[in-house]
């Protein structure tokens, strides 16, 4: 199939992940004109454009920026490097193979195809909508995801309501509790189904505590009243089975219900492409190079796993951009990506393939919900490899334990581990090389002994 356009690296998504991946690919030797960023919005920057609060960039730029300022730093790099990008353009299909064919559409050019050697998936994530939450009650106007409300207030300059109840204590919900309050709305309560908040500590302090907004943990919405417009919301406490406890119902009059109940990586394209998916993250399974199960297809940012901080998205995307650049620079004959026999022009024996293809498996257990990456090929890893993960509950004074082949390799004490915050361990290549016959690395939590 002949494509209408060609690129070495196509990056799907022009948000923080896509921008950092592009900048990194250029730094690592891919010519800017061989890269193409495809963005479906009319501007670059992604969701950062509506995140007008501060707190971004402490790790990346050593200063505290707002979302739009953080985005602009990366947009400036991409524009200075003259990396081509398409706006208002949506990718409808990506096909696998040595050459990937990306099918896209926009208003000016209609439907066209792009042939690429490598693809970086950087589509981000979206919010879990009401339809996915099983909330009983009517379907009146006034129910929004927190991010939709954020767009209304911060980009379009409109207030979605005046008396607000928020379900879910994700960061966007917390940020919107403060934002709506500052704009004169009354935020009556934030109800969280789980016994802990999914948001960052500092957001609970600065967005709720500062304004005296109550956070009710182990509570959920059990009824929405109002036919045309939300009139009231009833919440109730839930037991350990997460079912409402009779007698604990409280009704709040309000005109708006905001939902901040989790983010889902946006992986329709990845699934069509046939990449192997991780059931915990709802993102692709990747190796040390952030490469999916389809060779030459990389993933980074919230499409891979939902991050707490954009700084970590940028860092991860920088790694993905570097790996993609390495992949295309090496070309099809790469010794890095082929067995020795194959690169010498001979068909690889099954044994050769076996040895080169079986990476070290990273196992998440005992409180560690998942890891990114899931596998490591020692020959392809950098000297230092970051393994990011999230825990499934709040742990105090617990240890993060790394096992090499079921034997403790390292144990690190942590004062606090919480599901809302991404954790990481760093592995040294030399340690992995020194470990005899290393097949699995396990990351697990060991709780402090109870006295």
């Amino acid at each position, binding site marked *: 199939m002949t494509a209408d356009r060609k690129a070495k690296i196509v990056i799907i998504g022009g948000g923080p992940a896509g921008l950092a991946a592009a900048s990194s690919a250029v730094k690592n030797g891919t010519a800017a004109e061989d890269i193409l960023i495809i963005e479906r919005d009319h501007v670059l920057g992604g969701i950062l*454009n509506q995140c*007008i*609060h*501060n*707190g971004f960039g*402490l790790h990346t730029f050593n200063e*505290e*920026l*707002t979302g*739009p*300022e953080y985005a*602009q730093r990366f947009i400036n790099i991409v524009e200075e490097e003259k990396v081509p990008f398409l706006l208002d353009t949506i990718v409808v299909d990506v096909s696998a193979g040595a050459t990937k064919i990306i099918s896209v559409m926009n208003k000016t050019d209609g439907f066209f195809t792009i042939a690429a050697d490598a693809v970086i998936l950087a589509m981000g994530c979206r919010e879990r909508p009401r339809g996915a939450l099983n909330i009983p009650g009517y379907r009146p106007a006034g129910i929004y995801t927190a991010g939709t409300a954020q767009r209304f*207030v*911060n*980009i*379009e*300059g409109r207030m979605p309501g005046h008396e607000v109840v928020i379900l879910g204590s994700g960061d966007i919900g917390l940020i919107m509790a403060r934002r709506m309050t*500052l*704009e004169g709305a009354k935020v009556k309560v934030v109800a969280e189904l789980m016994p802990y908040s999914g948001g*960052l*500590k*500092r957001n*609970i*302090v*600065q967005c709720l505590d*500062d304004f005296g907004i109550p956070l009710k943990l182990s509570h959920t919405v059990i009824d929405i009243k109002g036919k045309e417009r939300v009139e009231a919301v009833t919440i109730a406490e839930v037991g350990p089975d997460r079912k409402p406890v009779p007698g604990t119902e409280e009704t709040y009059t309000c005109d708006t219900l905001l939902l901040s109940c989790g983010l889902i990586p946006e992986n329709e394209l990845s699934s069509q492409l046939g990449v192997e998916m991780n059931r915990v993250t709802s993102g692709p399974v990747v190796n040390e190079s952030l490469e999916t199960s389809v060779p030459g297809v990389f993933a980074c940012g919230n499409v891979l796993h939902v991050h*707490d*901080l954009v700084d970590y998205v940028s860092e991860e995307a920088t790694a993905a951009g570097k790996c993609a650049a390495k992949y295309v620079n090496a070309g099809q004959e790469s010794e890095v990506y082929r067995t020795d026999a194959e690169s010498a022009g001979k068909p690889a024996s099954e044994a050769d393939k076996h040895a080169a293809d079986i990476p070290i498996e990273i196992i998440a257990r005992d409180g560690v919900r998942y890891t990114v990456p899931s596998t490591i090929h020692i020959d392809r890893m950098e000297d230092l490899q970051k393994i990011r993960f999230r825990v499934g509950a709040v742990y105090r004074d617990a240890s993060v334990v790394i096992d090499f082949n079921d034997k403790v390799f390292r144990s690190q004490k942590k*004062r*606090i581990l919480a599901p809302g*915050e991404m954790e990481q361990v760093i592995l040294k290549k030399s340690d992995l090389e020194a470990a005899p016959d290393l097949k699995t690395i396990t990351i697990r939590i060991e709780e402090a002994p109870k006295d």
Partner: protein
Amino acid sequence: MNKITELTCIRCPIGCQITVTQDETGKVIDIKGNSCPNGYKYAGNEVVNPTRIVTSTVRVEGGELPVVSVKTAGDIPKGRMMDCMREIDKANVKAPVAIGDVIISNCLGLGVNIVATRNVDATL
């Protein structure tokens, strides 16, 4: 009696749990649990003179967007946040606006400017 305050540091995403001890006069005599000098400074301030950055939006005339995002260029006293919001609500700006443009200078006489945090081009 010494007064002990437990607080969560907000200077960076780590969110250290800091314990501040004050004597009878309110003087800070001990700060524990921080992992950097910023946290030490924050905790000391937070019990005596808490401050915040305020971020909001200001109406734009003739811009490709109806509002532009803004922030206080530095910390302001926590208790003045709503006063600051009222000043921001009164403001209006003509496009084009660039990141860093001063929208309100010396807001409320606090010695802190309100600056734009996004570029908004003028409509053609």
